[in-house]
């Protein structure tokens, strides 16, 4: 599922570099709080363990083919979301730069697709909810299978979204989704089975490895992950049901001038600025850019489901979250500075 540079536009690649960079910085801040060098060594060795475990192949039942462990969920179960995110990101950096698996510009997308979803969505919302603090086999099995499958499917959806928004591939959104989701569903089930078996083995032989994480989980805050999930659901699906009628300002203008948007005077500055806006807006009017050969989205006009709206909603939500996070960081830093000088 590693994205390549050749399939991405610089805008999409750059945006996900910013998102993943921010998540790494946040995870480092969270992990640095305990200053435990033992955990730093454990993170490094478990990151290396993921590489090594991927060398051990197993037979996939009923297919005759073989597969290997991905390791995203397993690492999160052992290290917790923040440390696992850092470890997975470091594995992906090494895979990209030193084994050419996934591109350099695509690194942000790959970290987001392969590390964010298992660490910050699948583990806290699914695995922990289902497994709780119990180490019984049935609960571990249900938690591992659900979380691994959901994490992989979310990552696969974002691969499709990132590729479609980049506009390099001619594969229609629906066809691409239909191709990616069933394959990743099957891979997710196998990943869940292996994760379950490994966690069950560790629970039976060295349960301290698992209890270390369960203890620290009690203190964790889910606020950022909850906001991200709500933003993705709202932007990605609820935006379909937004009213198609003009907003208050457009309605007022339509009543007074007969047009929803008033045409500006043909001044050169206006012309230049609008042509710049047309060039840089990668989702004009909350949809994909039309190629001029007809409609750019092959959707049923009667259906509320619209890919362009979903992509615009998700992109907009993420941008607002990043902006809010950055403003929050600066405000917090400013307040701490004021407090210090006040002392």
């Amino acid at each position, binding site marked *: 599922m590693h994205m390549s540079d050749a399939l*991405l536009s610089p805008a999409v690649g750059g945006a996900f570099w910013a998102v993943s960079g921010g998540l790494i910085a946040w995870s480092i801040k969270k992990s640095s709080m305990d200053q435990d060098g033992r955990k730093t*060594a454990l993170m490094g060795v478990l990151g290396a363990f993921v*590489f090594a475990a991927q060398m051990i192949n*197993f037979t996939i039942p009923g297919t005759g083919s073989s597969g290997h462990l991905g390791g995203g969920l397993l690492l999160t179960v052992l290290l917790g979301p923040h440390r696992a995110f850092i470890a997975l990101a470091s594995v992906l950096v090494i895979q990209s*730069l030193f084994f050419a698996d996934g*591109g350099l510009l695509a690194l942000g997308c790959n970290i987001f697709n392969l590390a964010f979803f298992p660490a910050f969505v699948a583990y806290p919302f699914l695995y922990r909810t289902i497994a709780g603090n119990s180490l019984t086999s049935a609960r571990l099995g249900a938690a591992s299978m659900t979380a691994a499958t959901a994490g992989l499917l979310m990552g696969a959806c974002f691969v499709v979204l990132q590729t479609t928004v980049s506009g390099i591939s001619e594969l229609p959104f629906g066809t691409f989704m239909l191709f990616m989701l069933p394959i990743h569903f099957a891979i997710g089930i196998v990943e869940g089975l292996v994760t379950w*078996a490994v966690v069950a*083995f560790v629970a039976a032989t060295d349960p301290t*490895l698992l209890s270390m994480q369960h203890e620290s989980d009690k203190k964790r805050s889910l606020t950022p992950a909850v906001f991200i999930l709500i933003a993705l659901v709202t932007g990605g699906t609820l935006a379909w049901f937004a009213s198609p009628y003009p907003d208050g300002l457009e309605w007022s203008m339509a009543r007074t001038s007969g047009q929803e948007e008033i045409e500006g005077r043909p001044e050169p500055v206006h012309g230049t600025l609008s042509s710049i806006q047309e060039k840089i807006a990668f989702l004009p009017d909350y949809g994909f850019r039309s190629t001029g050969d007809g409609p750019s989205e092959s959707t049923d006009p009667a259906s509320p489901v619209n890919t362009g709206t979903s992509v615009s909603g998700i992109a907009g939500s993420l941008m607002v979250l990043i902006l809010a996070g950055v403003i929050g960081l600066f405000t917090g830093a400013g307040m701490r500075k004021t407090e210090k000088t006040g002392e």
Partner: protein
Amino acid sequence: MSEPKHHANRPEHALPAGDRASLGILAIFIIFVVAVPKNNLPAVIAYGAFTLFVITASRLSLRLIMKRLLVISPFVLFMAAGNLYFDRQPIFDAWNFAVTGGMISAGVIAAKSLVTISALLVYSHSVPFHRFGNALRAFGVPELFATQLQLVYRYSFMLGDEARSLQKARDLRSFGHKGKDIRATAQLIGSLLVRSSLRAEKIYMAMSARGFGNNLALQQKEPFTKRDAITVLLTTWYFLAVRIVFIP
């Protein structure tokens, strides 16, 4: 475990600029290549000339690069095939053969992939990993992340050896596909995991005994010299010139 031969025997100063400048040039180059419009094959080929120049200048084996390229990017090839299938609009005829838009855009995807991955491989074969870690530190990457990268890289070869020997032992004892199912393999992976955590404990104790303070940054940061600045400026100018000439 030892590093692979091509990693262990890397030339120390194969690139014309410092490690930080080289990493910067690599990033700028990839952005320029990726920004080429999806139907402009000549521009990608023109950028490919730079990769070829660096491969020959750093005296890397072209065969080694080609071998690596063959085993990666099946996803890219699938996407290129999608373009071939979905865009069958003929653009021009060449010797009575209709060239379609999909053929050109698929060619661009494959060429971009070839050029960017080759550039990445040149960098990875020219800069030893500890110097890459120092280049990242010089760019302001947090110490915890740089240390994490170096630990993962260092121990992936060691644990890789252990994983291979575990797999070999299992294969010697299994007949056909017996004993290679998920359940049995998960026990191997679990046992590797328990061994890895014990190893982490020993590593931490050894590192603490040598004064480890949560980071591995022992070397001084590499300075960004005037030569580095000139190399970055010249290469960026060259990439910009290619863009102006080949992309109307």
